[in-house]
């Protein structure tokens, strides 16, 4: 196999307006140790050079295993963290280093849904106070008063508006997540960043919450950045998907491109790990078992970060970092907007031959 020739991806929707969210070269390093007297010498390279764009109205998902930096990316985009370097542009404004005061009005448009519905609601506050907090904090007085607005929001997410004076501990996990969603909707945001919104919920409840999010997107013209590790949920909700490994994006593509024609070995391995309920289909498929653990993000492997666990790795993978590009020739050719960071992308049928 030869190294496929590559060229820069042409923007797929060139005619379209500016993307709602644009992330360029985003880096976040967390210094380790370093206290009162000692200086920190090393850093966790949680996110290390991430680029992507999110178009208005779409659902963009970021998947990856625990510790790959996807939650950190979410917190950088919502500016709960300040990036070490790189740029986050939202709706034409560079928000990467805005001060708290300048960021405050922007926060109306960027909201976040949190992972753990048991930790994301203050146990001492009533539902009314929790869902009404955005109005109070942003000094917004909705028509008909805040109380009415809160009750409307509760209705929108499928909760009983009479539960206004209840406390979070009186609700189930799914209901709590709905309360959290109601809070994020209060200010009518443009972009919602959802950090594993259903992974803490029962499987039966997950579908309800996912469907609620989809309905709300249609109704309220929302754009989602979805952080997840459950590939079947991601396939259900996303328009485009990015796969992250150790702080870098290894593959981005339209959902069907990525799921049906994965090119990066890591993506292929990850998809092969999804349980298939159909026994007939299961027989025809090879499971790729990755050996070893994810290397430490404190001292990640040089060049391609996946080479320590990749069955296709060769010398070049250890010395030269593959850029994230569309593959335009060779058997592993990718469609427009489908970019891969790999020297030896997986060719179609390659795995079937092996079996």
């Amino acid at each position, binding site marked *: 196999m030869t190294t496929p020739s590559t060229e820069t991806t042409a923007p797929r929707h060139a005619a379209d307006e500016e993307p709602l969210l644009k992330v360029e070269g985003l880096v976040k390093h967390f210094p380790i140790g370093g206290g009162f007297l000692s200086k920190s010498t090393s850093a966790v390279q949680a996110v290390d050079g991430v680029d992507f764009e999110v178009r208005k109205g779409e659902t963009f998902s970021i998947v990856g295993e625990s510790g790959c930096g996807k939650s950190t990316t979410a917190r950088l985009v919502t500016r709960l963290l300040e990036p070490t370097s790189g740029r986050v542009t939202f709706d034409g404004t560079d928000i990467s280093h805005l001060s708290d005061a300048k960021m405050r009005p922007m926060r109306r448009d960027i909201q976040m849904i949190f992972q753990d519905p048991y*930790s994301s609601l203050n146990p001492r506050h009533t539902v009314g106070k929790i869902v009404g907090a955005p109005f109070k904090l942003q000094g917004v007085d909705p028509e008909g008063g805040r109380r009415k607005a809160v009750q409307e929001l509760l209705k929108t997410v499928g909760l009983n508006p009479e539960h206004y004076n209840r406390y979070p501990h009186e609700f189930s996990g799914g209901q709590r997540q709905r309360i959290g969603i109601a809070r994020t909707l209060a200010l009518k945001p443009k972009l919602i960043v959802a950090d594993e919104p259903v992974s803490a919920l029962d499987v039966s409840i997950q579908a309800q919450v996912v469907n609620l999010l989809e309905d709300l997107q249609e109704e309220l013209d929302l754009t989602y950045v979805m952080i997840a590790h459950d590939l079947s949920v991601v396939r259900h909700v996303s328009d485009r998907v990015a796969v992250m490994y150790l702080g870098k994006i290894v593959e981005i593509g339209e959902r069907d491109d990525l799921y049906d024609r994965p090119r990066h070995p890591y993506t292929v391995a990850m998809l092969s790990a999804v349980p298939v309920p159909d026994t007939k289909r299961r027989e025809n498929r090879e499971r790729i078992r990755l050996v070893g653990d994810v290397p430490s993000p404190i001292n990640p492997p040089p060049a391609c970060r996946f080479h320590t666990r990749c069955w296709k790795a060769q010398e070049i993978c250890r010395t030269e970092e593959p850029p994230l590009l569309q593959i335009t020739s060779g058997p592993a050719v990718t469609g427009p907007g489908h970019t891969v960071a790999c020297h030896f992308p997986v060719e179609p049928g390659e795995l079937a031959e092996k079996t």
Partner: protein
Amino acid sequence: MASASLVAESDKEIQGRSLSQIAWRRLRKDKVALAGGFFIVFLIVVAIFAPLITHITGGPPNEYHSDLVDPALGPYGTFGGISWQHPMGVEPITGRDIFSRVLYGARISLLIALLATAVSVIIGTVVGITSGFFGGWVDAILSRIMDMFLAFPVLVFAIALAGVFPEKAFGLSGTPLKLTLLIFVIGFFSWPYIGRIVRGQTISLREREYVEAARSLGAKRPYILRTEILPNLMAPILVYATLIIPTNILFEAALSFLGVGLPPPTATWGGMLSDAVIYYTLPHFMFWPGLAIFATVMAFNLFGDGLRDAFDPRSGR
């Protein structure tokens, strides 16, 4: 928020049950803690109405009854001269009513312990929350200061301070000055206990997602501290305040016993114990103030433990 005032308007309201209400229900089922609580309430009432009660019984605490005492052998009658008038007997030599002195001693003990606890809770909460919330070098400095206070030889310091402190200061003199001094010395050296607990709790609360949620809504730091973190600190603060009160009672008693508390003739439990040491042949004289200290400290401890269990059922047991 306007919600509170609007609650009454709606007729179809579903009232939630807050965590404090649930804790209160749990506490009501804890008989031992309730017994402690009742004793504390009883003690406070008795202390407040001490002049009224002693008016009916043996009279004021510093009234001499030399007719009831044999100068050489001690009080006439059994068990230190117990009678309807003097239910706990009288002191040797002076013949002062012990019941009355125990009641007035309760006033001093409770006053000093409660106010000193208030001082330590205020300092401890402010320092602990600052240290925990801001972290970094602020935390490093404040934590070292707390360590320093915990390592300080408080008793020696208090004794030395009582010796060198002027008779008049801050526009006060005599007993009120001593009282203020005691409250601040005791309060000033017990705040690190509260401070450390508040710091630890704040560090854990700071990382909760609801704090991040508030930040993602544009909340400023004062709002996060006041509205998101402080309400969650009230339970541990209340519990540890209740558990610090008995320590402060013992500390005050110890200082009075060592003669650096309130000057005589003011009745204090520690002072009464100290006086009793000379009359070791008459144990009743030591028994009553000792019992008062023991029962009060135990009541506060039982109540505090019950309170902790009620707020956090997973702890203990």
